[in-house]
Every structure is written in C-alpha cells, then in structure tokens.
C-alpha cells in the first residue's frame, strides 16, 4: 500500500508554514494520485483547531486522490498533543467523498461525530481515544456499513469523555449489526469486567475471529465469565493484553486452547483504602 503521512512539525510551524500548505504541496506532487493510504498527523495547534478544515479540504480535492483506500486522521503522540485534547470534527463527509475507502482510523474523540454513517466498502473502523461519548457510539450503532470486518473502539474513562454504561455497549454484542464482522475490539474501558461478562455468552462470538478486550481494567471477575463461556473457544484469538488478572487466572486463560495474549499485567494502586485501576490510554 502506498502510504503518505502529512504532519506539521514544530519547526515548520515556527517558520510560518501551515497544514493547508502541506496539503497543497501534496496535491501538486504527481505521485499523490497513487497514494492509497493517507495519514494526517499533527496540524497547527491541534488542541484549539478542529480537524474540520482538513476534512473540508480533502473533500474539496477528492478528485486529486483517486486511489485512496485508507485514512488515518490524527496520528499524533502525547508529545504533539494529549489524546483527549485533539479536536476532531464530523468525519462523515470523508466517507461520502471517498467511496473506495476501506479503512478509517481516528485518534481523538473530542468534537468527533460520524453522523449519517454509511459506506459500502468500509472494512475497518478504529477509534483510539481517552473516552468515547455516547453520541459517537450511537452514530456507529445507527450506521450502515455492510462490509465492516474490523471494529475497534477505545471506550476510555468518564474523565475523558466516556459517558455511557454497559447498556450503551450491549448493542455491539448482537449478531447482525455488522454481518461480516470478524474483529471486535471493545477495549481500553473502565468497565472492562462488565463488558467481558456481557459478551461472554453473546451470539456475536460465533462469527468472530478476534475478540479484543485489551488495554482496560479487566480483572479475574470479568475473566471468569470468559473462562466459563462455551462460545469463547470459537474464537481464533482473544486479546487481553494489559489487564489486572491474577497469575492464576492468566494460567487458566492460557489453557483455553485458543491463541490468547495476556501480557502486560498491571498492578492496581491503593490509596486511602480504595483500589484504583486505570485503562491503558487515560493519560
């Protein structure tokens, strides 16, 4: 896949360059028409300027990018901008503008919407963030993505924008919402145990290859439900990387007979007699 990453560095910013300038340069390069995967890195003051101006510009120039199959909007690390400070926008216009899009990856959920989400070819949707709001969750639940195979959502914590409950997540666990789904990631959650418990006996497991419950606050409690499930063994891969399970439970999970990842065991913190556990991406 021919990939191009556009990013405005600190030094370019100091020299007075801006992201629209980078885009113009990109379009004027004849090889841009062959680019299949476009990565949008930091733009100017990502914590104050939303991605809307980039979305608008890409839509306007869609004809110059006939080969695009993948987009990653917001590829940046905390050194560039805290993940919860990245300001996104409604990214649906991109889906309408690029009918051949197969992958959309998004980092940052502040200001994010995916309104009227419909696409015939999209196979992969990934949202990495500190906390996903029910607005976006509902956008995805109401979407029409008949070819979606890979859905990966960082649910995050309340402090960074997660305002849902297990009830808001449950609809993702029902078979049929995305008929071709092979990979489901409901991860980086502060209610990871509840999610594990709910999904353990859900019929969606019958059709999945991978269940990704990694990066959250999974403990023995949630893992116990997975262990007892008859359906879990239908999976090819169970990703529980970054967790709060005991050594004993890790052993039991490893003996499930399917490929599992139980690396990166976390230690809970105790403070004033309260126990604290944090998902991986909470800053």
């Amino acid at each position: 896949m021919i990939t191009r990453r556009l990013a405005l560095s600190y030094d370019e910013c100091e020299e007075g360059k801006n992201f629209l300038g980078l885009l113009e340069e990109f379009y004027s390069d004849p090889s841009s028409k062959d680019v299949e995967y476009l990565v949008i890195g930091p733009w100017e003051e990502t914590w104050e300027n939303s991605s809307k101006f980039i979305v608008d510009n890409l839509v306007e120039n869609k004809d110059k990018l006939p080969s695009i199959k993948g987009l990653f909007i917001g590829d940046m690390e905390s050194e560039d901008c805290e993940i919860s400070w990245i300001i996104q926008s409604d990214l649906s216009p991109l889906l309408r503008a690029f009918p051949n899009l197969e992958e959309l990856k998004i980092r940052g959920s502040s200001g994010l919407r995916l309104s009227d989400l419909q696409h015939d070819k999209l196979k992969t949707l990934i949202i990495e963030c500190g906390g996903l709001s029910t607005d976006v969750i509902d956008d995805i639940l109401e979407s029409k993505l008949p070819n979606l195979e890979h859905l990966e959502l960082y649910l995050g914590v309340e402090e960074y924008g997660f305002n849902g409950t297990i009830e808001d997540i449950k609809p993702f666990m029902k078979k049929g919402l995305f008929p071709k789904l092979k990979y489901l990631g409901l991860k980086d959650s502060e209610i990871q145990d509840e999610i594990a418990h709910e999904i353990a006996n859900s019929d969606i497991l019958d059709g999945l290859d991978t269940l990704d419950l990694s990066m959250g606050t999974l403990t023995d409690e949630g893992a116990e439900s997975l262990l007892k499930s008859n359906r879990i063994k239908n999976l090819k891969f169970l990703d529980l990387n970054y967790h709060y399970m005991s050594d004993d439970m890790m052993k039991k999970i490893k003996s499930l007979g399917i490929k599992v990842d139980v690396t990166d065991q976390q230690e809970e913190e105790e403070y004033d007699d309260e126990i604290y556990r944090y998902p991986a991406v909470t800053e």
Partner: protein
Amino acid sequence: MKRDYIIIGNPENRRVEFFQRALVGQGMKPAKVLSYEEIFKRKLEIGGLIDTNSIVRIESPGENFNVERGIIALGCESGDIREDVGEGDIRAGDLRKLEYEKGRILYPSCWYLGFTRLQEAIWKVSSKVQGLRWMNYPPEILTMFNKPVCQQLLDSKLVPVPRRLGKVTGYEDLRNEMECHSVKRVFVKLFMSSSASGVCAYQFESKSGRELLSSTIEIGQIEGQLAFYNSLKIKRYTEKSKIKAVLDWICSQGAQVEAWIPKAGIDGYAFDLRVLVVGKKAAHIVPRLSKSPMTNLHLGNKRGDINLLGLTKREIEEALAQAEKASAVFPNSHYMGIDVLIASGSHKPYIIDVNAFGDLLPGIVYNGMDTYTYEIAKFNCKT
C-alpha cells in the same frame, strides 16, 4: 609528570566508587577523596588538603542530607542578592531545625547560592596550590547548573536551544508571557535543578480554558504550609489552584521557561538523547524513551538503541555535532552529559540541558570503556 587524582565528593556515593574502580582498572593509584562534609568542617579552608599538581575531579554533592543542609546554610548565610536567583526563603534559625524528609525539595535558590560559594571556595584553592588541573572547571560547573544562564550562553554561540520566555514571577505572569509569545505549551523548570527535580510541562487551551501541568513535583503540606516533593511518578494536575501553587513556587525560586518542542517518538514512546561528550567529542549515547514529557531514566523510563529510533545516519550525526558544539561552550571542562531533544517530524536537534555530573551511566560502553574509564583515558592523553 605523573599526577594523582583527587575527588571532591561524597565518599559513600557510588559515583566515587565507580571512578576509583576505573582508575585502578587503568593501573593507576586510587584517588584521594576529599568529602564535602570535611570541607564544611574546615569552613571551606581546604588549601592544605589538596596536593600540588593534582587532577581535581568534582563530583555531585547529591544524595547526602548533611551536605545538602550545609550547602543551604552557606546560601542563606551568604546574604547574596542576585538578579538571576530567586529569594532565599529560609532564616538561619530555621535551618537548625531542618530535618531530612524523603524527596522534599529544600530551598532551591538558597541551595544554588550555597553551591556557588562552595564551588568558588574550591576554585580559589588553585591560587594557593600549584599546578592543579581540573577535570571540570568550577566556574563552568556553576554555569552549567544555572539553566537560564547556560541556555542563553549556548544560544549566543548559535547552539540550537528551545525558545526561551522572559523571567516570570508566577502563574499569572507566565500566562501573560505565553500569550505574548503565542506559546501554548512550555516547560517550566527550577533554574538550578538536576535529575528532573522541579520540572513541569504546562499547557493550556484558550477556548475552554482547560490546562494541564505534568510534573515531577508532588504537593504536600507541613504545618499548614505547602511543601514540595520530588515524585518518581509523573503527577498530572488539572485544577487551577494546584497548578498555580506549583508554578508560583517554582517562579519564586527562579524559573527557566522555554517552549515545549514535541519530541520525536517511536512505538508510542517519546525520546531524547543523553550524550556524554568527553574532550569535545561525543562518546557514550543513551536514548531515553518515555511515555511522559520527562525522559529521565530514574523515573522508570527505558533506555533505547540509537539505531532503532527511526533516525537517519545524518540526523544522528547532526545531533552529536550539536552536542559537541554545546560542549565547546565550556572549553575548560573535560566531560559533560548533554541532553539532546530531537524534534518530532523535522528530527532537528535542540540542546535542552548540559549536566556537569551527567556521566553516571552504568553499563553503557563506548570503545570498550565505561564512562569513567573513558574520561580518564582521554584526560591522560591530554596531560
């Protein structure tokens, strides 16, 4: 002429032990050790304790509370008033009551004044004792320790450094200064600190007024007064009252404020380079990988491999060249640990710190030698 080494340091500290081991390993006599405690006992009169023609190695006075208290006492007795140093805030009477408390950052501006007097006293010995040679030169050590002065000096010699903001008196002043320079993200550091003590990464966003201070400083209270501690875990403050408390205190002691240049990263880690420059040439290199804005290794950060950072050969060479250029600003000092930031995206190097005692890099080898052995070998070539 055969010369012997003398180490001025804290004899119980591993830094001294490592250097002695390196001397013996090279078939040399172990150095005589003059402890900082002894220097205080002698009220800084140390002329008779240093042999003529010695090579003097000055070590970090850190990790010894008696010495720390001695330095602070020197500072508060000095009555010095200096523009670039904040107000000393301890009276001699309180000093006697000063007790060791794990991690507490004690009277930084007093400490620097005391450290200055101490180094000056050591330096003055050269007028009484003949033929001394300094591994690192005390007046230059003092400059390296004073961040605003050091950065300004580097800048004047066209060494790339982050943009500096003016002197700030506190939180409100900092916000104004940031506004004025259109800078939204800054590092605020205690002007004289080392080992990431009193370092903050601060950012705010004007639309929502949201702000975040990541810092190695932990706020505590003693008898109703705020006290500030070094934390090995990065603290994240989002409440204005706490952010203000930390920043006001740092500014009262004297602060270095500079633009926060995003560091290059690899696999979700940001990194910078600790480069030991010996005799003006870059030697030992330690990439420091961090998930927080602070890269110091004692904060639990990882060492990386210079060849696995996604930098081109030319970019690495450029980073090392700038470290060497920075070292040349201190022509009378033999070695220093220079921290080089590699900017995200452009991979342009910036010098963010020059550490006079930055050679404690156990396990890192260059040309088959540890840092101390290499320093001695190179120094012997010179003499």
